[in-house]
């Protein structure tokens, strides 16, 4: 049974650890984001203020980190859900590859938008 079922992958523990870390990071970054956009000033969401934030290098780094965390956390969660099904069990490799591509795609696309400012 062990030989039949065994599929050791370092992706699983790394995925789990990164899911925990990105979860923590998201809690911090999203709290900061809401604090900055809703609690500090009334006009924080005015067009010129949004542009000012997005052109600031420190904000760019923060939003880049937020984007990376969200992309990984969301799609790795989706991967876990899919792998919990019989369909996922039959197509583990395809799902892993697809999810990595989707994570990279979402991150690169978001980064592209971020750096237009």
């Amino acid at each position, binding site marked *: 049974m062990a030989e039949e079922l065994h599929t050791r992958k370092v992706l699983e*523990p790394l995925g789990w650890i990164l899911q925990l870390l990105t979860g923590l990071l998201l809690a911090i970054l999203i709290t900061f984001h809401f604090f900055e956009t809703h609690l500090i000033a009334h006009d924080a969401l005015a067009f010129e203020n949004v542009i000012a934030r997005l052109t600031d290098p420190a904000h760019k780094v923060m939003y880049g980190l937020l984007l990376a965390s969200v992309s990984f956390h969301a799609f790795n969660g989706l991967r876990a859900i899919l792998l919990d099904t019989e369909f996922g*069990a039959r197509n583990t490799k395809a799902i892993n590859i697809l999810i990595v591509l989707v994570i990279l795609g979402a991150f690169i696309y978001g980064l592209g938008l971020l750096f237009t400012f």
Partner: protein
Amino acid sequence: MENKDKSNMGRDVIFRIKRFDGEKSYWSDFVVPAQKGMTVLEGLYYIKGTYDGSLSFRASCRMGICGSCAMKINDKPRLACETQILQLNSSKIKIEPLDNFRVLKDLITDFEGFFAKHEAVKPYLIRKDDNYAEPVELIQKPEELHAYYDFTLCIKCGACFSVCPAAATRDDYLGPAAMAAAYRFNIDTRDEGRDERMFMVCSDVGVWRCHFAAECSEVCPKNIEPAKAIQKLRFQAAVHMIKKALKRW
């Protein structure tokens, strides 16, 4: 007499039992004259002896040791021998076979896969110096015993497996009982077989499928907390696999 607690007095209780005859499922109702201290298992024996000899259920020790009589009683997996009818405070008791197991007949489910998964994690001491001709005493401190003792109390009743959402969606998932057993032996200081056990625990059907719903700990009749064991085993598995990967590089 008037001051006597009403819950201690005998009364008729309806047993609504989910039946399965190999082809179709149906419900049967039986009236059981319940007395103080009477268990659900005794009620089932009463039904079998009085109304319907074909009613099938599994039972053995009648004292919460063997784990044979686990079934869903009023929507929660419990041991029928440890559940007193009047303590359920219900005039109608719903009894069903455990979820996540194939039903063979009435309340009897197929445990073959469950035990195969248990066996797959090697739930026994593995020693490099096994010598049955000249056995040696293996010394262990009380605190080392206490670290895993609770997990030795598992009676393999399958209650944890029946409520596990991961086991419900993946037939090949090891399940809480098997992984709690793996953890129990992994942290036993006399054991030297962690690597062998991790082979299975780290696999696609092992710890990574658990999402910590913790229902297994909720329903365990021995309060073993398999969910806690799995979280600790998951950490062990992560360290083990990353170390292995780094060694390969």
